[in-house]
């Protein structure tokens, strides 16, 4: 028991738990008794060790806690020990900072890029437009180049959407025979419209894709045959530079155009047609080409897409061939009498036109469904 009392006294002395009187007494006791002095030193050392031990143990606990916390949060990875939370959450925790940084960087980059884009876009766009237009020109040139090589492609050029709906045609016999281009007649049937807007049903009497000509017969009770045709159809060739004019239906109203014969052959030296310099539009196909004397010298059929005013007309002598063919193939048909004399010679153009108007028709091809 004495030892315990002594130990308690020493501890109280060391912690500073004694009052002044007690302390004084204990210090004199220490001085006089070497054993007690030794015990005090020893205990002081021991308490220091205890202190140290306690601090270390607490630190170890703290470290352990910190470690577990960090593992749980995903800041520390220890192989397969990721069990405290879902792996996704672990990964999220581990990389959320990186993700946030990446997202911010991405945002900044996006802003910078859009900023740059806005800053530079007018210039860039201008360049593109310029380049594109150049390219278009290059394509055009290519098309022209290819066009000179392929006749078939060229002859189909008027056959665009507007042409499908129709073209022009003119009477070759007052009984109601109309000649037009074969390519105008795309549908299964056709109607013809005169310059006054009257429509008449028509059937195809003869068609020749090679010559690109077709003969239509008006089969309509409303049709009142003209007494005679004012123009003739030329059998022979026409000379270069001859003044020509045409009537046709590039629109619903009849349209007049004039020009000159510019070549004895057609597209790609096609001997069946002439090259004419005239303003021709889709819808003019099948229209008559007259010379100043009121002779039909050709049937306007195609034009060169990229050359202004360059058109082609099937030579009028082909009409004779067509009529002959028809007469041979179908003996039952009444004989077509082509007009041989023109009554328009020396007439003023306006007068010629007024007489011609009634003989030129708007051909509307349609397909029955």
């Amino acid at each position, binding site marked *: 028991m004495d*030892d*315990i009392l002594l*130990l*308690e006294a020493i501890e109280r002395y060391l912690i500073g738990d004694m009052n002044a009187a007690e302390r004084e007494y204990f210090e004199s006791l220490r001085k006089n008794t070497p054993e007690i002095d030794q015990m005090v030193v*020893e*205990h002081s050392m*021991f308490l220091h*060790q*205890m*202190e*140290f*031990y*306690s*601090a*270390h*143990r*607490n*630190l*170890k606990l*703290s*470290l*352990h*806690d*910190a*470690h577990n*916390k*960090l593992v749980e949060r995903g*800041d*520390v990875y*220890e*192989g397969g*020990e990721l069990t405290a939370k879902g792996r996704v959450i672990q990964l999220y925790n581990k990389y959320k900072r990186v993700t946030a940084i990446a997202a911010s960087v991405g945002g900044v980059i996006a802003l910078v890029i859009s900023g740059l884009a806005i800053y530079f876009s007018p210039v860039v766009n201008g360049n593109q437009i310029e380049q594109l237009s150049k390219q278009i020109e290059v394509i055009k040139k290519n098309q022209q180049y290819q066009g000179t090589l392929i006749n078939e492609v060229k002859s189909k050029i008027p056959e665009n959407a507007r042409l499908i709906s129709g073209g022009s045609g003119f009477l070759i016999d007052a009984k109601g025979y109309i000649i037009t281009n074969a390519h105008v007649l795309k549908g299964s049937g056709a109607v013809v419209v005169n310059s006054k807007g009257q429509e008449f049903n028509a059937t195809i009497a003869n068609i020749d894709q090679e010559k690109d000509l077709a003969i239509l017969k008006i089969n309509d009770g409303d049709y009142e045959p003209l007494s005679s045709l004012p123009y003739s159809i030329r059998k022979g060739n026409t000379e270069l530079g001859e003044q020509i004019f045409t009537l046709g239906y590039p629109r619903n109203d009849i349209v007049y155009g004039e020009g000159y014969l510019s070549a004895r052959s057609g597209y790609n030296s096609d001997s069946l047609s002439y090259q004419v310099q005239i303003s021709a539009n889709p819808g003019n196909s099948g229209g008559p080409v007259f010379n100043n004397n009121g002779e039909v010298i050709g049937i306007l059929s195609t034009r060169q897409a990229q050359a202004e005013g360059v058109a082609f007309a099937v030579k009028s002598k082909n009409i004779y061939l067509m009529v002959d063919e028809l007469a041979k193939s179908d003996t039952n048909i009444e004989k077509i009498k082509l007009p041989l004399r023109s009554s328009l010679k020396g007439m003023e153009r306006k007068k010629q036109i007024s007489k011609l108007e009634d003989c030129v028709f708007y051909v509307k091809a349609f397909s029955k469904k």
Partner: protein
Amino acid sequence: MKADTNEQALLKGLALNDSKAIETIYKDNFAMVQAYILQNNGSYDDARDIFQEAMIALYEKAQNESFVLTCQIKTYVYSICRRLWLKRLQQLGRYSNQVDSLDETVPVEEDLEIHEKRNAEFAIMDRAMNSLGEPCKSLLEGYYLKKMGMQELAAEFGYTNADNAKNQKYKCLMRLKKLFFSQYNIGD
């Protein structure tokens, strides 16, 4: 290179066993040490042990009021861990040829010597504590480690009053001292 004020604050926190400071240092340095240990024949557990020991060494250094770390915490911790791990490998006979001598390290031999002495002392006390048996161990732990009052301890352990508890505590303390000094003296 002097450690910046932020690192000084962290070290002060560590010295006071502040959990925030410990966590921060832990987080900033553990991955590096772990990578090193794993690269050199170690396991995840080895990494944890070595790192925590380095933390304790740093803590011991930080305990000194006049202590100023002359390098970054990172460098110091890495140097300690490297030393400790090489030593551990040697002890285990697993020493592998290290070629990473280009790492930035600071001399830590002296600190490690002190640390090892401390470790030895800790081990003695730990052994003494563990051989005390209950309720002595818990009683002393309650008083000296958890800094509980005698009244509180008496209530927790079921003593009728604080004086009895105090009496018992001194009895235990005497036994612990005996155990400790028997070992400690030999160690000297």
